[in-house]
C-alpha cells in the first residue's frame, strides 16, 4: 500500500448528502472479478449522459475543465452509505482520488478507504462548505494540501485548518501498512484463545 503523508492536489466539490456506493459505482459497472480498471464506472449514473453510452454529462462537476483532474473529493454527510462494495473505493482510487473530505462517512466505506490507503477525512459541515466555496472561487487551479503528519489542511486562500484523525489509522496511512501483514505479525494468543474457546463454546466449532 502506498504511504499517504502529504498531498497537494486539485480538489472537486460534490456536496450532496448520503451519496451511496451505488452512485459511486453502479453495480452494472462491475463487470469482472477484479480490483482494477473500475475508474471508468465512477459516478457513471451522473457522469455520462446515458446508462449505455460514455458521452460525458457536462453538468457533472468532474466533467468540468476546472475539476477534471481532481484527486481530492469534497462530499456531503454520510458519504459512501449503502452497499459494502469495495469497488467504490477501487473506482475512486483508479480515477486518481487519494483523499475524500466529508462531514461524515458510512462505517464500511470508511474502513474500505483506509484499507486501500485512501484518506477519509472528517471535517465539520461548515468547514467543508467553506472549502468548497474557496475551490470554486479560487484563482488558478483549485488546490488543497493535506499534511497528514502535521494533521493540517491548507485551503486555497492560505488558511490552515487543523484536523484530527485516529492515531492508529494515521500511522497505518503514513506508513502504508497492510492490515493483514500487520495482524499476522502482531497477533499473538490466537491459538490459546481457540484452545480455551473450544472448551467453553464447543457448539461454535463445526
Amino acid at each position, binding site marked *: 500500500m502506498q504511504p499517504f503523508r502529504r498531498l497537494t492536489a486539485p480538489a472537486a466539490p460534490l456536496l450532496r448528502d448520503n451519496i451511496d456506493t451505488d452512485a459511486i459505482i453502479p453495480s452494472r459497472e462491475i463487470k469482472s472479478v477484479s480490483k482494477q480498471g473500475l475508474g471508468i464506472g465512477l459516478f457513471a449514473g451522473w457522469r455520462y449522459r446515458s446508462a449505455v453510452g460514455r458521452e460525458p454529462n457536462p453538468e457533472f462537476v468532474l466533467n468540468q475543465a476546472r475539476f477534471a483532474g481532481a484527486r481530492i473529493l469534497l462530499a456531503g454527510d454520510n458519504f459512501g452509505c449503502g452497499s459494502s462494495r469495495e469497488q467504490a473505493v477501487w473506482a475512486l482510487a483508479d480515477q486518481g482520488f487519494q483523499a475524500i473530505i466529508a462531514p461524515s462517512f458510512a462505517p464500511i466505506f470508511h474502513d474500505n478507504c483506509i484499507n486501500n490507503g485512501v484518506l477519509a477525512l472528517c471535517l465539520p459541515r461548515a468547514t467543508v462548505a467553506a472549502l468548497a466555496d474557496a475551490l470554486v472561487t479560487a484563482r488558478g487551479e483549485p488546490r488543497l494540501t493535506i499534511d497528514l503528519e502535521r494533521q493540517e489542511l491548507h485551503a486555497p486562500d492560505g488558511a490552515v485548518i487543523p484536523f484530527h484523525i485516529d492515531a492508529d489509522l494515521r500511522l497505518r496511512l503514513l506508513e502504508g501498512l497492510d492490515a493483514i501483514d500487520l*495482524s499476522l505479525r502482531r497477533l499473538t494468543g490466537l491459538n490459546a484463545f481457540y484452545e480455551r474457546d473450544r472448551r467453553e463454546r464447543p*457448539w461454535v466449532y463445526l
Partner: protein
Amino acid sequence: MSERRYDERLASGQWATGARSLLEKIWQTHVVGSGGGPPWIAIDRIFLHERTGAIALEGLSKRGLPIRGAARTFCTIDHIVDTRPGRTDETLVPGGREFITRTRAAARAAGIRLFDVTDHDQGIVHVIAPELGLALPGLTIVCPDSHTCTQGAVGALAWGIGSTEAEHALATGTLRLGKPPTLRVRFEGRLGAWVGAKDMALELLSRRGAAGGRGKAIEFAGSAVRAFDMEARFTLCNMATEFSGVAGMVGPDDTTFSYLAGRDFAPRGAAWDHALAQWRGLASDEGARFDEEIAIDVDPLAPMVTWGTSPQHAAPVTGTVPDADGSGTTREAHARALEYMGLQAGQALASVRIDAAFIGSCTNGRISDLRSAARVLAGRKIAPGVRALCVPGSSQVKRQAEAEGLDRIFRVAGFEWRESGCSLCFYAGGEDFGVGKRVVSSTNRNFEGRQGPGTRTHIASPATVAASAIRGAIADVRGLEAA
C-alpha cells in the same frame, strides 16, 4: 487467567461489573488480543457470495495465505445468478457467469462449503444463514455485504465488511474493530393491522435520517419487538445498515431458541443444552446502559412507503409527498429526489400510478412475507399493465411456499414466480424495469438507479406491494381489505 467455566463467568459478570448489554457480553467473549490500535475480535462465521467472494478468496490465494477456519466459512450464489426458471450459470448480467464460476472454483480450492446454484439450500446469504442454523446467538458473524446486520436478529453481532476486511478475517480468523457505541431503539405498544417491521424501520429512518445510527451497534427492543416472530426481527435488523448502523441485534429469547432448535447446523443433544444454557444469559441485563436510546410508540403507525431516493424519505401511505421543510433533508436534496422520482410536493402518495411490483430480497423474501402478500392477492388480479415479480429469498422458502400453494396465488394474480436470489433488488446490467418506470418494492434501497437507470423505486412492506400491484397505484392495504 481464571479457570472458571465460561457460563459461570458469564453469569457472574466477571468481565465487567454491573449490568451489561448484549453487545458487551458478545464483545467481552471475543477479544483475542490488543496492542497499538483497536483489539482483535475473533470471528465465528464468515459468509461469502459470488459478487464479493471470488475477489476475496483469489486475493488471499495470490498472497499465498491459507484460510483459517474453513469449516466455519460458507459461500452462496445469490447476487448475480439468474432467477428465471431453469437457470444455469448463464446470466443476463455482463460478466455474470465469471463471478459464479470463479467463486465456485475459489470456494472449492479453499475447502469452503458452497451453496451452489442448484443446491437444495441455495438462497440469499442472510436468509439461509439463520434458516440453516448457521447464525446463532452470541456469535460474531461477518460477510462482505452490508445487510449482514440482518443476522443479528438471533442475538449475534453480525456486520457487513469490505473485501479487504473479508480477506483479513479469512486469513487471521479475526478483525480489528473498536467497540461500537450502543443505541437501543425501543418499539413499544401494539401494531395495527397490516403494519409491521418494515413500516417500523421506515418510521425510524424518516424520524432520524439515514445517518441516524451511524457507527452504532443498534439493539432493537420493546414490547413490539418481543412480540415479533424471528422473521419480522430479521426485517428490522436488516434495515439497520440503511440507518448507517454497524449492526442490528435483538436479545435472544424463547422465540429465538425455538426458531433455531433442530436446524441443520444448529447444535444438537447435549451440545444444544450446553449452548442454550449460555444463550439464556446473553440478552441485555435489566439496567444495562446504552450510549443512546430512542423510544417509538407503534400504536399510531400506518403502513409506510418511500417517496424519494433515500430510505429516510419515507411517509405514511395515507400521507402526501412532503414539501422541502417537512422532508427532513436539505432543499437541494428534496428537489433532486422529487425530480428523479417524478413527483410533486403535496401529491397524495396513495394515488401514484405504478408500472411494476417486486416482492423478495433479504429484507422481505421470507415465508411470512410471502404469506402476507398472498393473503392480499388471494382471489384478486394485479392491475393491467403492471409487471409483478415474486422472488423467494431461498430455495427452502420457495419449496415451503409451493407446499402451501402460495405460488399458485401469486401466479393466478399475475405475478411471475421465480427461483431464489437477490434478483431485481439491484440492477447489475441484466434484467431491469426500464427507464422512468415506477416500482413498489419490498426491498431496502430506493437509491437513484438502484433497480435500473432511471427506475423509480418506492420501498414498502410485502403487503403494501401486493395491494399496490392490485390497484396499479401505491395503495393502503387496509383500504383494499375493506373493499
